[in-house]
């Protein structure tokens, strides 16, 4: 019962964040990029709900704008990792043999790097760009997807109906796409949700280290990075972006758990 309530809370939180981000497109109380010398480092007030930063920019407006960037980057990362991972995993798993062996060795090597470190190194290569972040994070998460998809494809491949399809003269790739991929969808939904959470966290960490989405476009991690200098004089600058990241992650985790329970009834339903 409560488990379902948790899922509902997750969906509610995610909806809240998404709606806020979308509302930001229509408008924010202040322009998130306009500086105001007189309003620097002001505490939260009726005028500036969440205070202002060292350039006198409105924190609330920046948080809302950042939501859009952070969510968009995470979403694009999920799409990239899922599509690249599915393609590689399916092809490699279906063809097997040397293709598979080489692909898996490379994937193993990629997996040997912690996602954040790999993304960090790739970011240094591609330079500061929001698409750069997507590529870096997407590449970092692709190996996980490849592994899962390949595993499923391997198990599906042995099944008789696939043999039948092949006997009918369908090409190997066609067979792979029509039979293995549907089997992957529930697994992909689960892993996609988890990648979304990880990407959000890693993007924040990258921005925090100064290698994420380049300023002045605000991101939550970037806002936190700027805020550390003033953690004593303007604690609100550190608190609210962190809260935003945490609440979004909470939403994703709650939603993800509920989703897994639903898609994988073997678990937790006794």
């Amino acid at each position, binding site marked *: 019962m409560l488990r379902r309530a948790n899922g509902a809370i997750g969906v509610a939180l995610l909806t809240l964040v998404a709606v806020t981000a979308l509302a930001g497109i229509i408008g924010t109380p202040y322009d998130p*990029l*306009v*500086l105001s*010398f007189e309003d*620097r*480092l002001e505490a939260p007030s009726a005028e500036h709900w969440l205070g202002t930063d*060292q*350039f006198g920019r409105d924190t609330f407006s920046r948080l809302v704008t950042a939501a859009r960037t952070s969510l968009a980057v995470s979403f694009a990362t999920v799409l990239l990792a899922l599509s690249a991972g599915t393609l590689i995993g399916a092809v490699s798993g279906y063809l097997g043999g040397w293709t598979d062996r080489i692909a898996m060795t490379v994937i193993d090597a990629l997996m040997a790097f912690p996602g954040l470190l790999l993304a960090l190194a790739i970011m*240094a290569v591609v*330079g*500061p760009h929001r698409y750069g972040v997507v590529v870096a994070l997407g590449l970092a998460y692709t190996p996980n997807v490849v592994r899962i998809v390949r595993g499923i494809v391997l198990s599906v491949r042995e099944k008789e109906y696939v043999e039948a399809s092949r006997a009918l003269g369908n090409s190997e790739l066609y067979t792979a796409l029509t039979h293995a991929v549907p089997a992957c969808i529930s697994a992909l939904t689960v892993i996609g949700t988890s990648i979304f959470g990880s990407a959000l966290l890693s993007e924040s960490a990258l921005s925090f280290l*100064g*290698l994420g989405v*380049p*300023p*002045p476009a605000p991101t939550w991690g970037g806002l936190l990075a700027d805020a*550390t*200098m*003033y*953690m*004593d*004089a*303007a604690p609100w600058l550190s608190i609210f972006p962190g809260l935003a990241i945490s609440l979004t992650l909470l939403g994703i985790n709650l939603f993800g758990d509920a989703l897994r329970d639903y898609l994988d009834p073997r678990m937790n339903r006794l």
Partner: protein
Amino acid sequence: MRFIAVLLVCLAPLAGAAAEAPPTGPLLEVAINTDIRGTDPGVNRDANTDAVMHHVVEALVGYAEDLSIVPVVAESFRLGDDRKTWVFRLREGLRFHNGAPVTSREVKWSFERYLDPRTHWKCTSWFTGSADDEDGKPSIITAIETPDPLTVVFRLAEPSTLFLDRLANVQCVSAILHPDSVDEHGNWLAPIGTGPYRLGTWKRGQYIELERFEGYRPREGKVDGLAGRKLALAERVRFIVSPDAAATRAALLGHQIDLFHNLPMNAIAGFEDAPGVRVLPSPTLSWSVLLIQTRDPLLSDPRIRRAIAYAVDREQVAAFNTFGYASVNSSAIPAGIAAHTPVHDEWYEPDVQKARELLREAGYTDEPIRIQANRKYPNMYANAVVIQAMLHAAGMNAHIEVMDWASHLSNYFDGDFQLSTFSFSPLASPAMRYYKLIGSKDERPVYQWEDPRAMALIERAIESFDREEQWRSFGALHRLMIEDVPIIGLYNAHSAAGLDETVRGYRPWPLNLPRLWGVWKTSWSDGT
């Protein structure tokens, strides 16, 4: 105005120098933002290495508080009548950290080691003349003589006005060392110097600790640059490596460290008013600028460059990013030095309307303009943020491109940018600053200004020995810079030392090296 006010604040402690001996205590904890590079002074160095090693080693001569050159290990020096012979008399009774007396023999050994190319001293060519003379004519040493234990004679190939400056140079310190500083093969071991502190424990990446050298005999008088009275009041000085400015600032506020001599400007907000800490600003010679690529198709039009000059409100940029601790300055000659004559204060008055008119005249149609910046140096980043907003307000489609320092620097060297917020390291010589700006980009892309008229003017300035005439050339250069706008100078930033309120006797100075002699804490007097 601000400059003078700051100078007064800095000089105030001088006047109140107490006659009574300040108390001694166990430990001073000081932050540095990178680990030192090594312990071989002048060979493997950077600013933080210099900052630490100047407590351990001393040269024959050094810079005083007013940047004049005074004796340090030497007692006195004089120039012979041939203007090629320099005679140094050493201080009597001076000892190395190993207890051995300082004699002319060790001085000669120290210089012979530095002049040996195998030592890889950074400035050997100054005294041997082996490299091209970009830094001016070399002061070639032909012989070092030791007529008696306390006299050293340097014979030069020809008269050189730069000789003393080079001996006093802080980056290429010519430390007087005991020969036991190296092993029998000449490999570096550890510095056995003459400074008030000796090297203690060095935990790479963590901290480096100095111990008081009990055999040090301080001069009489007051703290004076790298010379003067060096009283080691703290038994130990620990330099803690703390690369993150925000963390260092927090550590000062939490009373974990006593001092950080180089607070970035953006760390000052809210810090001045915080309880338990103090900020001591002091002017420096570094120059924050907005670089303009004059070969960029868009920016090659001087009207666009002038529009940018009108759009950028330097006072506002400085106010935002240095909290008033800067002297607005668009001239290559640092504000506050004598060569900065009134003409060097002239520049564009901020005027968004004029900027828009110029843009219209030049046929600007919303082409994107990218400003490169990095986050390693917070004020370069902050300048870019503020300038982007100003250009945007004047109708320019400006974007910030933040990259890491290595890429930013490499683009600077290659001339690969449109606009770029940058900051030049301190250079005391005005001629040198212009010299490094002016030249053909075909020859070296790092040159910022390739107007032939400017090239002619700087050649004339360098060749003239008459000060007035040289200054007139500098003035003409600045007028030309206003017309041409090859670069937009913003300000000379101050450096700010952050101190715990219990710390006494610390004074910043223009060379911006921390000096921890004569520094004590009020908490010591009751304890010990």
